[in-house]
């Protein structure tokens, strides 16, 4: 019996010796940028449901990239699907869609300052004042009103003719006291909201699924539709680029694309007199043009463009390539003369940019 027990004990001990693991987690890293330093934040969406969104920071002067800055500065994850980011008064607001959260960070140290939680599925944020901001949502028929100082949800703007299930409000631009919002998923509208009453006061029907919204130097709104998709009960049509007069809230001009095109990501340059968008290639157009250019600004080069931004100071064009969506994406930086200036890897699915 003693021999048997000895053998058993050896057996058990051998298995126990198979190393217990201890979880390794990060230390906080100190960053200290100067207030005057210009830079570019890149929101890397990460993979939906995997919680691997990240934030990158690029210094255009030194051409250096810092990845995973949120994690490195805070020793915690950014979350699931980093959708967008805006900066106001030295505070960066990172909207993390499927984590139901908006993080406030110091844009020089990347440290968290606070967070607004329990949002439905936040997409974009727009400040009305220091104490009032709107946060648009998908899968909700309300725009959330928040108090950024207290990190609180303070109210809602109900969107008419929209259910929770088909709810989709996206990007926002403000003209005077009115805010304009494009409604994207299974929608075809631009909303006009009175920021004093927090009520939708008007809407404008455009094409199927307007994806983005900007306002140029002439106070013209620009949106581009994606036209839906084949088999969609909502419809499938050729997408269009629209120029809308903000004052009269009417369509001034419609620029039609070919059926099957997938335009997206309308952006402005710093002087807001040129718009850019993606449609396989990168396109550039004067805001006063009466037709889409014949040739693109940058031709498609086996690169799957996913995000786009223009340096408001230099006019350099930054394009994000998501590659296969499960590896670090790459950002290409071109001069306004179409010369490749720099290229660098960021995080998974770089989709949105924000200039510091």
């Amino acid at each position: 019996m003693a021999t048997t027990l000895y053998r058993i004990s050896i057996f058990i001990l051998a298995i126990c010796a198979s190393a217990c693991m201890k979880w390794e987690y990060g230390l906080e890293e100190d960053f200290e940028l100067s207030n005057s330093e210009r830079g570019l934040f890149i929101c890397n969406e990460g993979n939906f449901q995997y919680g691997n969104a990240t934030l990158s920071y690029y210094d255009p002067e030194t051409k250096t990239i810092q990845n995973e800055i949120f994690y490195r500065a805070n020793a915690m994850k950014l979350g699931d699907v980093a959708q967008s980011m805006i900066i106001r008064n030295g505070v960066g607001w990172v909207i993390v869609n499927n984590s139901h959260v908006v993080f406030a960070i110091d844009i020089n140290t990347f440290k968290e300052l606070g967070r607004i939680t329990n949002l439905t599925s936040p997409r974009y944020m727009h400040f009305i004042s220091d104490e009032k901001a709107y946060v648009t949502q998908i899968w909700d028929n309300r725009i959330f009103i928040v108090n950024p100082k207290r990190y609180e949800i303070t109210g809602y703007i109900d969107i008419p003719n929209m259910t929770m299930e088909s709810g989709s409000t996206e990007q926002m631009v403000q003209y005077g006291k009115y805010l304009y919002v494009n409604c994207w998923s299974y929608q075809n509208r631009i909303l006009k909201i009175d920021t004093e009453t927090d009520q939708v006061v008007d809407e404008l029907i455009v094409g199927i699924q307007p994806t983005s919204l900007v306002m140029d130097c002439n106070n013209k709104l620009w949106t581009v539709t994606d036209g839906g998709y084949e088999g969609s009960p909502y419809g499938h049509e050729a997408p269009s680029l629209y120029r809308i007069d903000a004052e009269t809230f009417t369509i001034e001009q419609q620029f039609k694309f070919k059926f099957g095109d997938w335009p997206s990501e309308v952006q402005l340059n710093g002087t807001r007199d040129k718009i850019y968008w993606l449609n396989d290639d990168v396109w550039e157009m004067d805001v006063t043009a009466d037709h889409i250019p014949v040739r693109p600004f940058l031709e498609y080069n086996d690169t799957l463009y996913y995000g786009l931004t223009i340096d408001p100071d230099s006019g350099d064009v930054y394009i994000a390539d998501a590659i296969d969506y499960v590896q670090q994406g790459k950002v290409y930086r071109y001069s306004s003369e179409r010369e490749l200036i720099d290229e660098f890897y960021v995080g998974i699915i770089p989709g949105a940019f924000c200039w510091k």
Partner: protein
Amino acid sequence: MRRVFVILSLLFATLTASAQDRRIDIEGVTVTGNRPIKDIGVQQTKIDSVSLKENIALSMADVLTFNSPIFVKNYGRATLSTVSFRGTSPSHTQVTWNGMRINNPMLGMTDFSMIPSHFIDNATLLHGTSSVNSTGGGLGGAVQLATRPAEEEGFKLQYVQGVGSFLTFDEYLQLNYGRRGWQAATRVSYSSSPNEYKYINRDKKENIYDEDMNIIDQYYPEEINRSGSYKDLHILQEVYYKNNSGDRFGLNVWYINSNRELAMLTTDYADDTDFDNRQREQTVRSVLSWDHLRSNWKSSARAGYIYTWMAYDYQRAVSEDIMAVMSRSRSQINTIYGEANGEYSLGRKWLFTASLSAHQHFVLSKDKNIILQDGGKGIVGYDQARIELSGSVSAKWRPTDRFGVSAVLREELFGKTWTPLIPALFIDYVISKTGNVILKASGSRNYRFPTLNDLYFLPGGNPDLRHESGWSYDAGVSFEVGSEGKYKLNGSATWFDSYINDWIIWLPTTKGFFSPENVKDVHAYGVEVDGHLSVNLAKDWLLNMDATFSWTPSINHGEKRSPADQSIGKQLPYIPKLSSTVSGRLTWREWSFVYNWCFYSERYTMSSNDISLTGKLPKYYMSNISLGYNLALRWADFNLKGTINNLFDEEYLSVLSRPMPGINFEIFIGITPKW
């Protein structure tokens, strides 16, 4: 650790204090000349019934994790569990239940967490090429699950009650009746738990603010697994009849009613009381079978039907008493199945087989309710049907006791598209009768068709997808030695090599939805080793040990998606290169002690194999133990068992942002009355 050793000491103290006399037998080794001609060259793993019946709380996902070289990817406790067989994706493993394929025709994969192991009597893994003997499409392999009659006379009842950590309750009832060729069995299992296990959330920090909303402190919170409750009901009814003319009839009906919340990610900042994210499923699987056995031929026919209703609801509170629907999807699958098989032996040297099976699927998928442009209501979804035919013929020849060769030809039809002919060749050769050393080798072509979601899902379904195709080869050597009543040792080592082209992957589009594409060419290769030992350590002491080891590089050799693509030549994400299991069972008289251990090497989360701070899935070891005791009274037999899962309280992840439970316990009490 100290606590663990205390527990172990107590276990052994209990063991030594309860000695009684009992004989333990070890089977003799298989004589090489008696190897079944049907299994020439086949690489298979049979999960032993003791592992399947270890305890009533186990699913097939748990059993495969600790008893096979298959990698099981768990999205949490009692949550979706998919498998990777020989470095392939979940849809590359074909799963049959009593002959009928049960892979979800919409998704292509099988959720093994939804299969209670107590409902399975035979489980066999057919590795790679060997799956062609059974079905097509198993680019990684096939898992054959089956029930069988108890072959007992009279009435028998067994009831087991389990109570465990996290308010987990498992109940299992089995009724058997057998008389004059008839066998009937009813099995019922019900498992439920709020599943609120605690863990330290390293992915987020809790903020402490001052009055001016400045953060004055942060810490990693101890959280519970939020919104992860489950209630799973399974009922299996079986009736068998066999006559004296060699006919056996069977009817198996399996009903599943599952209601599971989808647990929040570690990076979720929503209030779990405001959100309800839930998946429900009701499935009926039924198979009617007839087998006719003669001395030199065998024929069988099967007919089956599967009905599956699946619902996914995502809701949030918009006021104190109103939950508004954010997402509501419903899908219904009706599958009609038929199969005929025949086998004919020509002497002892030849066996010919033929098989034809049909699965007719009808799928109605309603994924989203929308408001149309004209203000009317619309539904985003699809309504499609597809016939899937699979036929095969084979000839198996064993001219001498030492050598056997088998050739299989299979042909498949999916919808209106035929596969090219699928050939497979198997050989085995006895290198040495001393030690029963056998060399096995096989090679085959194989194809897998896109699933119905791949083709038709809205938005994103791609009707232009090509089927995946692959070549697989393997070769291995096995041995078996032993001495009847003393010990038995067997094992095998197998090298495998497979190429899969046009691998289908769902990728995001610039339109904001995912769409499948034929993207990758994958070279999956490696080595599988397994060993089994049964030994009588001393009088009344029996030790059974099973071990597996796998080395499975699965390399992307496709074309670059863009000039910046860094994934070529790299291991596929979420597939470990190394994995291993050890399962030890020590029995002494009425006592049994089981130690299950597994290891998975680090898995990449990026196709480029970069390891980032936010994308790490470190290697992990997992250990479970259990101690059981059979108590025989005059009026009933009792079985008492206690289990400890995650013995060393490891913090580990199988999938990013999905917390796994630490050390947890469950006790089981089983009663079998003697009528």
